């Protein structure tokens, strides 16, 4: 064992558990945020004035305030208002989804609008209905175009899960704080945690890159 890292022997499973929670929360936030972001983007692009105002106010709120405040609000405030009793994990997951959705909406809308208009006119000339055009021409291209920008959200969300510790979710950073306090080795512990985050996020990026290369279509979208 590398000198200074002996604490790992005793604590590695605790840290690992924290890591798994981090990965889990990130995935939930990302997936939920993607669905929500898509709905918001479609509403903004195709909806009427009222829908657009609602969508943009929502996005403005969640992008303009810190995730930390949102987490505190959903964990303490919402139960106080509605009487629902939920765990830190549920509150945390919901907040992450709502927050990520607001950011992903921007990327997805950009991708939808990035589909060249002339193809839409060509589809109309063939007699396709607006719904058919959305489903067969716009979305298939938009979801490929969005991937490079979307990887930003993957990394940002992964890092922001560290905020979950303030409501008591045992993710990786909170595990680190616990271990650091109990072993009196903050320097070593936090360094290890940093390496863990770094490795996880960059391998996730690499995997996404590979997936992107697989589904890429020549002439569509940019290089990652």
């Amino acid at each position, binding site marked *: 064992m590398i000198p200074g890292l002996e604490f790992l022997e005793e604590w590695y499973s605790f840290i690992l558990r924290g890591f798994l929670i981090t990965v889990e929360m990130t995935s939930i936030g990302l997936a939920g945020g993607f669905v929500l972001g898509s709905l918001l983007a479609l509403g903004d692009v195709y909806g009427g004035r009222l829908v657009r105002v609602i969508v943009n106010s929502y996005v403005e709120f969640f992008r303009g305030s810190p995730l930390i405040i949102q987490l505190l609000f959903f964990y303490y405030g919402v139960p106080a208002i509605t009487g629902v009793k939920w765990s830190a994990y549920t509150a945390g997951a919901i907040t992450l989804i709502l927050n990520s959705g607001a950011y992903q909406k921007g990327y997805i809308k950009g991708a939808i609008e990035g589909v*060249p208009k*002339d*193809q839409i*006119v*060509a*589809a*109309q*000339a*063939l*007699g*396709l*209905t607006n719904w*058919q055009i959305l489903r*067969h*021409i716009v979305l*298939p*291209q938009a979801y*490929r175009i969005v991937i490079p920008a979307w990887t930003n959200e993957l990394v940002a969300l992964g890092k922001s899960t560290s905020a979950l510790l303030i409501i008591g979710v045992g993710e990786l950073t909170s595990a680190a704080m616990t271990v650091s306090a109990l072993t009196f080795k903050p320097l070593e512990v936090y360094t290890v945690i940093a390496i863990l985050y770094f490795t996880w996020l960059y391998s996730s990026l690499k995997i996404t890159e590979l997936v992107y290369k697989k589904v890429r*279509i*020549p*002439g*569509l979208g940019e290089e990652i």
Partner: protein
Amino acid sequence: MSSETILEGQDIWKIYGSLEVLRGVNISIRRGQTKVIIGPSGSGKSTLLRILGLLEPPTRGRVVFKGRDVYSEGLDLAKIRSKIGFVFQQPSLFRHLTALENIKLGPKLVLGMSEKEAERRAREMLKLVHLEEFADYYPAQLSGGQQQRVAIARALAMNPDILLLDEPTANLDIELTWEVIEVMEELARKGITMLVVTHEIPFAREVADEICFISDGVIQECNEPEEMIRNPQTPRARIFLKRLLGEV
């Protein structure tokens, strides 16, 4: 046996704000006819074609398809558009689909064909435009001329009653232009009803039944190709043709 009038524009006006792009245009195309529209830029020829293709409504006037006034009778525009084939200056192929898939899409989604039928139809169309080997190529992998031919095949796959072409070779350089013109001439000879906006006079000479000259939002004169070229009646037409063809 008189052939039916497929598409007709009656007293078409198009006004944008204070700009009068089309000022009372009358034009009709009968089944089997190949009609060519020529004119200087800004004359309104592309706008006219878009209006006849139901991609834009006229400010005034009527568009009549097979005897029925499209706008006043409240007909289903999408349905009729599928019967009016349109080829644009840009091929506008769907980039995420192969050439074959581009051609299959309309028949499947709009005509309700099965996957098998659509596939067969699409391959037939590709053969028509001499691109069978390129069925699985993506638009980005095709040259401009090839893309345009696929665009023509895509329009034809819908079995339209008429094919409208808006300067299909304007964006192509000379070598690529020829392969598209060749296909267009073959189609005209096969009897496909066509209305083409173009500068390609040799094409018109080969296969057009009539050339119409449009300028300042009005059709100035129509005549059969040889007559029009040799003996333009109106001064504007004369100037335009002189510039287009060089000193004869």
